[in-house]
């Protein structure tokens, strides 16, 4: 009892134990609609619950067995990883590069920043529609441009291609996100004291050395946050697959989140969807832990 009290007591007059009441609404919602459901996933994953009838029964590990034997776990984890890696690299390299360019005093900086940010305002469903047009074979934007420049013979159809479709979808997410990422990098770069740069220039550092040894270490907080955000968005990959490819061609763009949704709501196998969600949970936790360890180490090095 004493121990529990020691744990909870605030030991302060200004911040009395009464403050605990402030936690209640958020904690209640979060527990009921987020934490409890996560635990329930494990239970549902062992049943043949179909979302309609409530007289489901326990079927042991069958859902997991089917997921494994159908190759769903491997395939959707692989696609999710590719998507995440492409997003993390593409998004951050582009955004960081352009942020460094923009940070040099040039005209039209505000204009460019505004345009780069525009796609971030759009609903993913609108972005999906726009890029369906961009990628459309024959009459879409890229196909028309290729035609106009005389590459008419090329049969452009990236979303219909087994090997490239997942990259095609990841590019859409980069298009939408890199403006935001760039603004975060810009904010980081602007905090750097210009006298530091001047000093290093006097010391004979070239542009590359300034970027590598002064700018990058000084914005390591921005780098960390942007990479973490990209990883989170990558693991959540869903929207553009829902709008543009429905997981196809075949299963080439089935990511974990799309597959869960698809199994739950199109195939109406809530039990199997829960089983895949449990797997996704483990995948995400593993990646998060690896990322945290890696980030800690890197920040120490820089």
């Amino acid at each position, binding site marked *: 009892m004493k121990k529990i009290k020691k744990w909870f007591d605030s030991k302060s007059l200004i911040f009395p134990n009464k403050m605990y009441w402030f936690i209640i609404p958020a904690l209640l919602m979060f527990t009921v609609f987020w934490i409890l459901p996560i635990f329930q996933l494990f239970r549902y994953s062992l049943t043949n619950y*179909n979302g309609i009838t409530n007289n489901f029964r326990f079927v042991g590990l069958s859902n997991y067995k089917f997921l494994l034997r159908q190759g769903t776990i491997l395939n959707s984890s692989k696609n999710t990883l590719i998507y995440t890696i492409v997003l993390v690299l593409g998004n951050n390299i582009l955004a960081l590069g352009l942020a460094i360019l923009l940070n040099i005093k040039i005209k039209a900086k505000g204009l460019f920043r505004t345009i780069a940010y525009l796609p971030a305002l759009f609903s993913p469903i609108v972005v999906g529609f726009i890029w369906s047009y961009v990628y459309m074979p024959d009459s879409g934007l890229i196909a028309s441009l290729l035609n106009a420049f005389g590459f008419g013979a090329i049969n452009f*159809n990236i979303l219909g291609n087994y090997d490239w479709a997942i990259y095609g979808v990841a590019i859409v997410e980069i298009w939408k996100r890199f403006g935001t990422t760039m603004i975060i990098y810009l904010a980081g770069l602007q905090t750097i004291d210009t006298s530091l740069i001047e000093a290093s220039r006097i010391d004979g550092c070239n542009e590359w050395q300034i970027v590598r040894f002064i700018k990058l270490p000084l914005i390591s907080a921005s780098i960390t946050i942007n990479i973490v955000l990209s990883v989170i968005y990558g693991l959540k990959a869903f929207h553009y697959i829902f709008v543009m490819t429905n997981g196809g061609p*075949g299963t080439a763009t089935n990511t974990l989140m799309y597959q869960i949704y698809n199994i739950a709501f199109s195939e109406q196998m809530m*039990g199997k969807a829960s089983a895949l969600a449990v797997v996704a949970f483990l995948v995400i936790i593993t990646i998060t832990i690896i990322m945290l360890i890696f980030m800690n180490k890197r920040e120490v090095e820089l």
Partner: protein
Amino acid sequence: MKKIVALSLLMMLIFSAVVLAQDSEEITLTMLWSGTAYENDFETEILPRLVKEKFPNITLESTKLPDDQYYTVLKTKLASGEAADIILVQPGMAGANGVLTLAESGLLEPITNLKALDNFGPQARDVYTYEGEVYGISGGLGILGTYYNKDMFAKYDLKVPSNWQEFLNACKVLQDNGEIPIVMGDKDNYVMQFGLYQIGANGHYKDNPDYDQELVNGESKFTDDGTWDDILAKYKTLYDNNYITESSFGLSAQQAIQLFVDGNAAMIFDGSFNASAIRAEGSANFERGYFPLPANPEGEDTYASVSISGGPAITASSEHKEAAKKVLELWFDGQSEIFKEYIDTGRFIYSYGYAADKSDPLFKPFIDLYQEGKSFYWFNQQWPSGVNDQMQESFTEAVYGRKTIDEVTEDMQLKLEELLMYQ
């Protein structure tokens, strides 16, 4: 005595007033259908107009959605108990709107007492029957066949093939002359069923008509040798030889029909339900023909793929069941204006009333085979909904060389077992 008479008169007056009032009440019926609406479309334009003419107090609001969306919308609406009054259902278990699946979940209203049902033979009623009650009206006979460009066949001196080898030879001749032998809109991969079920009708089902039944009770498997592996392998030869090109995976079903209509391809596998689209005028003028795909070996008879097709049903959640029944009664009575217009679309094959002498010469070979018993139903009607989707998905990967035929049948078997577990 007087009092009683007066009272009963009063009662009758009130009763008839109530009945009349109800009858004159404005009713809005909703109908959800799948398919693509064309100009002057039967379901979305003609039917609502004729219903209004016949029953001035009934307004029929009819919506038509592309197949995939139809299934999604139907499922969510059914689950929330606010589906349209009249919906399109499929016989057996075919698709998400299979009549047995829906009836089992109590989502449909029995219509066993409908007089119009007397027009149909036992077969057409059976496939819509669940535990003794009829839940849907047959959409007539549906055919899966091979439409061909008669002029192009004549140009290369080809006649309608009567066995698989002849068929392959015809494809070869067309290909050698620089024509596209077969065009398919495989981007909408359900169209694969159009070819596969025709081949299937000539496969092991001849020897074992109960095969699909045995699949469900576990006596047979998709992976059994000489069953679906043969059917799929046959269909795959068409892709391997580029008789159906890989670019078909970039075409939608509608685009493929357009290419055929424009005279760019010699053949297309499609159903009687798309006959009007196939007949539509394109940029080339040619005569259309229709034959059952002769997937049989030399010297054997060709079997056709003919089935009772999808038709209307009334949902259990409907608030105007009686009005909906009235509309269906008139729609299928055999001589009403609605029935005539329905038949005149040329998409539906019935054998009673006005339709009896209206049969399309294009469909005659199929109807003959059907009556001789040389035909099989569309197989997905007997599979739990989802197996055919798996077949399409895995077969696509087989065409791209990512899976073997055996892996396709394994996938189908796994899917079947899984779906049975969820029943």
